[in-house]
């Protein structure tokens, strides 16, 4: 079953890390891509680069900033093909943001 892992964290969540800790964290993100169950991933640029788009009555409306006005921001995602939810949860728990005050939302993909 394919699962999306949506990574949410507070901006600045890596500020307190030393250079070595940061390198180790980065290595973890990379290592997850080597997992045989890996399908896809992407890291999004910071929240300051966000633009929100809506269309009302055929008119395109754009606003500066992210969709959700929350302390935590959506920063990126992974997609894995795991056997079951427990496996997916274990993978999600390896995502470094989860250990740095962030939260990973795990949701199965719609598969047609």
């Amino acid at each position, binding site marked *: 079953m394919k699962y999306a892992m949506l990574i949410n964290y507070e901006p600045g969540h890596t500020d307190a890390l030393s250079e070595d800790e940061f390198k180790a964290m980065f290595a973890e993100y990379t290592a997850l891509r080597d997992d045989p169950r890996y399908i896809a991933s992407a890291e999004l640029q910071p929240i300051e680069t966000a633009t929100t788009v809506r269309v009302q009555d055929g008119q395109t409306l754009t606003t500066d900033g992210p969709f959700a006005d929350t302390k935590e921001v959506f920063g990126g995602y992974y997609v894995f093909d795991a056997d*079951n*939810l*427990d496996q997916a949860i274990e993978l999600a728990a390896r995502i470094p943001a989860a250990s740095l005050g962030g939260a990973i939302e795990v949701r199965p993909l719609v598969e047609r």
Partner: protein
Amino acid sequence: MLASLVGFLGDFDLAEEAAQEAFAVAAERWPRDGVPANPGAWLTVTARNRAIDRIRRERTLAAKTRQLEVPEATMDELDDTVIDDERLELIFTCCHPALALEAQVALTLRALGGLTTEEIARSFLVAEETMKRRLSRAKAKIKATGVPFAVPPDHLLPDRLDGVLAVVYLIYNEGYSGRVDLAAEAIRLGRVLVALMPDEAEVHGLLALMQIHHARRNARFADGDLVLLEDQDRSLWDAEEIGAGRTALERALALRGRGPYVLQAAIASLQSDDEIDWPEIAALYEQLVQITGSPVVELNRAVAVAEAGRTEQALEIVDGLHLDDYQYLHSSRGELLRRLGRPVEARAAYERALELARSERERRFLKRRIAEL
């Protein structure tokens, strides 16, 4: 039987329908042909075969089952171990942490407790429709997200078992406040868990704790009023149930259990003695505090310390706690101050407790304490 079917079919609703069909067939045939030697196995086999027939007829369901090519089940294959293993899997599935706690509770009562949706709804004072929705949403999530129907692997088992025990204990505590049925149901679940996981000390510990508490329930209230442990009429205690609880506790201790449920059960057992060993109870509470870090447990330790004769020390402990909105902190403080001959402060503490009291019974009790000052 339901556990076996859910495991086999990977689908709660399908399993329930198959089970009902099997019962209908049994109701028809057994009076005529006699009850089979192993009724449980007969029902399970019949239900499985009916389910297989139905699935073969309805192709669209094929994707939902875990095994497409299934040989017809025979009586020889099914034995108690298979059924037990699947019941264990069912418990862990119902109590999966991805489900909301209230869903875990409802699902456990429905799938393992065998309560009807209406009965569960009544127990938790919600409308039947609400409970129906809660159950179907939980089942839908299990299916949609791939919650595995399995006993968790070793490295996940301790946390997951904690979750299962927490659900059973929650069910027990709902019963504790007056709805006796749920308490008995929780104890029954506890016994099922012990039968399925006899080597887990905390499982025995939880059963022991529930049984010993349950045994004292008839003495807890007199004329609708709360009766403290020391004032309880012990002839109203169920001696047999206390005995059963102590047996479970002994097994837990033999397994070297020192976890929170075992400790609480040991405390409950000591409190049921004719001569209560309060220093020992205080020591057990100290161990419990170290595990849980809970200020409420520390409060209970303070009470035990006071009962052991060290009232000043107990008050010091209580005054160090940050539980200002907890009524029992204030009622305990009131009692300690009363014992130390400080009635003015005692009254103030009891009155604070009265402000926080949530039931009429508790209010009456506290008013009596104030009047007695």
